[in-house]
């Protein structure tokens, strides 16, 4: 461990910044220095933004997205198609799909994938709430936009089975998944917007 070269407050800032994805100790130092140097232009507004987000942010009780309003902005958006739900593992995947701008649909964030080895089962994820949303009768299609990993695909299979089980109650929801361009083992978050949009358009029935 290198010895500290700044006061404890700045060291603390560096330490916290270093916990952000993509920032190692070295870049955290650079970021902190930039903030401190540009106190009025950057540090103060950032501090205010952090405080505000911290006061208001929460998990959407409908879809699992994070936002400062509940239900989230996407769930409230009247222009979106209620009959289609895109299921993603994580909020970052939701953001990636929104960036691609391919769908004006609703979302459902699972909050992870089923993994026996990590002790994560269906009840640890937002699967029940998805089934309940399907049960409402307004949903015609569920698009499984989970990653092409073993766990992602296992989860997709499981959800497909659960939704198929609704048919006994007279509820018929089509399940599709991304078809093209998502490499095996690939993670949505890393794909470029064009690939994502193409994958959404070319989805296939599960």
């Amino acid at each position, binding site marked *: 461990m290198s010895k500290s070269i700044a006061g404890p407050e700045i060291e603390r800032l560096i330490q916290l910044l270093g916990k952000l994805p993509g920032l190692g100790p070295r870049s955290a130092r650079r970021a902190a220095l930039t903030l401190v140097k540009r106190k009025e232009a950057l540090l103060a507004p950032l501090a205010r933004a952090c405080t505000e987000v911290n006061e208001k942010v929460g998990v959407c009780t409908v879809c699992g997205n994070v936002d400062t309003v509940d239900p989230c902005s996407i769930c409230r958006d009247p222009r979106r198609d209620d009959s289609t739900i895109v299921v993603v593992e994580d909020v970052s995947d939701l953001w990636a799909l929104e960036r691609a701008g391919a769908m004006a649909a609703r979302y459902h964030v699972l909050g992870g994938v089923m993994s026996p080895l990590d002790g994560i089962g269906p009840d640890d994820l937002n699967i029940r709430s998805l089934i309940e949303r399907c049960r409402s009768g307004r949903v015609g299609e569920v698009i499984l936009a989970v990653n092409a990993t073993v766990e992602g695909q*296992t989860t997709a299979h499981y959800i497909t089975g659960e939704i198929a089980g609704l048919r006994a109650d007279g509820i018929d929801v089509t399940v599709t998944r991304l078809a093209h361009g*998502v490499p095996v083992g690939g993670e949505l978050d890393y794909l470029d917007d064009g690939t994502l949009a193409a994958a959404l358009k070319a989805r296939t029935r599960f």
Partner: protein
Amino acid sequence: MTRPARDRAIEGTSRERAIEGTSRERAIEEISRERAIEEISHERVLESSLGERDAAEVLRAPGPDAFGRAPGVPARVAVTGLKLADFRNYAALSLELDERHVVLAGDNGAGKTNLIEAVSLLSPGRGLRRATLDEMARTGAGGTFAVAAVLDGPDGAVRIGTGVTEPDAAAGERSRRVRIDGAAQKSAEAMLDHIRVLWLTPASDGLFTGPAAERRRFLDRLVLALDPAHGTRVAAFERAMRGRNRLIEEGMRDPGWLDAIEAQMAELGSAIAAARVEAVACLAGLIAATREDHGAFPHAELALEGEIEALAAASGPAGAVEDRYRAILAGARERDRAAGRTLDGPHRADLRVLHGPKQMPAELSSTGEQKALLLGLVLAHARLVGATVGRAPLLLLDEVAAHLDGRRRAALFDVLDSLGGQCWLTGTDAAVFAPLGARAQVFEVAAGRVLPGAGPAR
């Protein structure tokens, strides 16, 4: 689940095909674009230096293709520069090479195997010793290391760098980074676009007599060199299977979860089996076509054993193997629970080898016969990889030459030339490699240093 498993199974396979299809198409598109550029420039060059008719004739004449290689001979990809930092017993090494074979001579413990182990990291996986990253980092250097190579091949010069860069990351997070021409790669598999590396080391000496798991790993390495997606599939299958074992062990409370995992295992397992069947068939075909009855290396006859592999080998409708395997798994839950693991699957396969000329199982052959058989197998595989990929693989032969008699050694060197790729050979005695003459560059390895050896200059 009301929809028949069938439909989903077929869609599963077609999804995979669609994915493979797109990436292959993209690759082909790129290659043909490159080729078009090459051809046009060649044409221009020829046209400017010769009369128009002559140019057309030259272009039509059989001879080197646009990449400058003779028809039928795969392109050569050679390591022309190698730098190591804190790798094994090398604190720092910088080697300039040409495209000829590389001979590393030196005493026991000098660092010969270490050096070719570094080269083996130019392929995905853990290298030729299957070592951990910590083992490969030089003792006392803090856990980081780097291997950087310059390749010369049909793509021109390509720089590949790999190693471990973060010293203080938690053990689980430490992973091998790969950069190609300076750009960080998401997956080590990206290296396969530029180079395939094959090896044979004394660690494989007991391959035929040892456990099936070793032969299975050997087999999967054979497949991987032909089908880059194989490694990911095998790893994914193993992960899915460990998940199933865990669910079974914990009492199978959620059958839907088991269904979902078994569906994954069936999709991956049938693809693994099919890839193995195809690779073994291709290799067996090449061996049969090129075998010499009194050659230096006895030809091997190959048999792939395994329940799923047998299903895959029997021609049937697409998706049939997957459905079958899925049904097998679903029906064996109680038994597997009692056994404490999954008893059916591609993880139980074996590659059985027969000494062709003697029609004797390899495990019953003499020590020397087994060595020659294995070497012949690896050489045949190298030829197959070259023919399939269009680039001759880099071949790393650790302590192979010293154990051969003079006739076989001469035969080996000739085979290496005919394979068309660069080969790295190690041995304690440089004299063994004398017949290679100017076909190789010789280096003397001593205590983590590499000096030009007493070989003939080019």
